[in-house]
C-alpha cells in the first residue's frame, strides 16, 4: 500500500474528518454530563434510607445496563418520534447513551459509598450532621476518589458506544464520516484504519488522563 496514497485519504478530507471527530467528542461529553447527573441521583436512591427509593434505583440500574444500547437508542429516537414526540436525533442519541451509562455510574458510586467505612457515617451523624450533609461533606468526596478508575473505564466505553449512537440516529460522527469517504474512494481498509485511529486517539487520551488523575488522587481499595 503506497504510503502517500494512505496519507492522502486523511489530508484530502481533513475538514470532514475533523468535523466527524468533533461530533463524536461532543456526543461523549454531553452524554457524560447526563450520565454523571443521573447516575449520582440513582446512586443516592440506592443508598437512601428508604426501601422504596432503593427499589426504584435498583430497577433503573438493572433495566438500563441489561438492555442493548441499540435497542435503547431506537426506543428513545424512533419510538418517541413514532408516538408523536418531536425529538432531535442527536439529542435522543446523546440522551440514550447518557441514561445507559448512568446505570453503570450509579453502580460505581454506590460501591464507592460502601467503601467508606460505616464508622464515619455513624460518627458524622452523631456529631449532629443531617443525612444529606453527611453524604455531601463526608462520604461523597471520598467516594469520588475511589471511583476515578471505574469512571475512566466508563468514559472509554462511552467513546466506543458513541459509534452505536451515530448509527442508530444517523448523524455524521467519526464512523459515519469514514463510511461516507469510503463510499467515494472504495479504499475500505485504508479509510477504516483512519477512522479507527480517530477512536484510538480518543480512548488513548482518556486512558492517559485517568492514569494521571489516579496517581494524584486515587484511594486504593
Amino acid at each position, binding site marked *: 500500500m503506497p504510503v502517500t496514497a494512505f496519507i492522502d485519504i486523511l489530508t484530502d478530507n481533513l475538514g470532514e474528518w475533523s468535523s466527524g471527530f468533533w461530533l463524536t467528542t461532543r456526543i461523549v461529553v454531553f452524554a457524560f454530563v447526563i450520565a454523571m447527573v443521573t447516575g449520582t441521583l440513582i446512586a443516592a436512591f440506592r443508598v437512601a434510607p428508604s426501601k422504596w427509593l432503593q427499589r426504584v434505583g435498583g430497577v433503573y440500574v438493572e433495566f438500563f445496563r*441489561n438492555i442493548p444500547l441499540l435497542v435503547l437508542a431506537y426506543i428513545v429516537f424512533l419510538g418517541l418520534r413514532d408516538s408523536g414526540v418531536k425529538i432531535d436525533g442527536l439529542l435522543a442519541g446523546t440522551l440514550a447513551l447518557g441514561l445507559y451509562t448512568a446505570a453503570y455510574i450509579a453502580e460505581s458510586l454506590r460501591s464507592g459509598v460502601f467503601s467508606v467505612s460505616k464508622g464515619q457515617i455513624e460518627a458524622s451523624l452523631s456529631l449532629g450532621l443531617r443525612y444529606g450533609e453527611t453524604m455531601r461533606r463526608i462520604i461523597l468526596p471520598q467516594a469520588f476518589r475511589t471511583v476515578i478508575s471505574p469512571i475512566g473505564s466508563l468514559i472509554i466505553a462511552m467513546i466506543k458506544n458513541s459509534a452505536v449512537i451515530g448509527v442508530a440516529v444517523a448523524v455524521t460522527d467519526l464512523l459515519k464520516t469514514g463510511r461516507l469517504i469510503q463510499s467515494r474512494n472504495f479504499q475500505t481498509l485504508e479509510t477504516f484504519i483512519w477512522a*479507527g485511529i480517530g477512536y484510538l486517539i480518543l480512548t488513548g487520551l482518556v486512558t492517559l488522563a485517568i492514569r494521571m488523575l489516579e496517581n494524584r488522587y486515587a484511594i486504593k481499595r
Partner: protein
Amino acid sequence: MPLAFFDWIGENRNLRFMFEGFLTNIEIALIAMVLAFVLGLALALVRLTRNRVVSTLGGAWIDAFRNLPLILLILFMALYLPPSWRDFWTDNVPGWAPEAFESGLILGAFLALILYNSAVLAEIMRAGIQSLARGQGEAASALGMSYTQSLRHVILPQGLRRMVPALVSQLITLNKDTTLVSIIGIQEVVRRGRQVVASGGNPFTGSTVEAPILEVFILLGVWFVIVNYALSRLSRRLEIRERKRSGGVKLERVKGLEDQVAADPA
C-alpha cells in the same frame, strides 16, 4: 390514539417471528463466545511470553482491538470481506443452521465479534494470570517447575476458574452486542422488530394490526433485560463464592469495559 396496548402481539406470527430472532441472538453470542475464548487464550499466552518483541506485538494487537468500537469492525467486515468467501459460506452452510446464518454476511459479523471479544477476553485472562503469577508463580518456580510447566499446572487451572465471573459479565456485553449485526442485515431480533413495525398487511408476518415502534422495542428490550439480569446475578454469585474460597486475592479489573466495572460487588 387507540386504547389497546400491545394488541399486535397476538396477531398472526408477530411474536413467534420476533422470538425466533431473539434465539438467533443468543446462538450468535454463544458461538462467538466459545470461539473468542479459544482465540483469546492464545492471544493472552502470546502476550505473556518471555520474548519481548512477541509480547509487545501481542499487547499492541489486544489494546488496539479492544479499544475500537465493535460496530466499526462489523461495518468494516461487511464491506471488506471478499465476495468469494461470502459465496463459499452461502454454498456450504449446513442445513441445520438457523435461517439468519444463511446470509454470507454472517461470516463478517462473526469475524468482527470474535476479533473484538478475543482481545477483550485476552486482556481479562492476562490480568487474571498476572495477578496470580506473583505468589503462585514464584512458589512453582521454587519447586523447580519451568515457566511453561507452572503456567500449565499451577496458574492456568486456578486462573481460568477465577475468571469465570468476569467471563460471564463479558457474555452479557456480547449478548447485547449481537443486536449490532442487525446493521448489516442479519435476520436477528432487532431486524425483525423493525420488520414487524412495517404496518398494514405486513409482508413478513401477514399481520394487519399496526405495531408501534415504541411497544415493539420495549418488548424486545425486556427480553434482553430478563436474560442478562439472570446472567448478572449468576456472575455476582460466582464472584462472591470465588472470593471466599480464594481468601480474598482480588483479580485486577480490566479497564474500558462497562460490564466489567459493574461486575464488582460492593
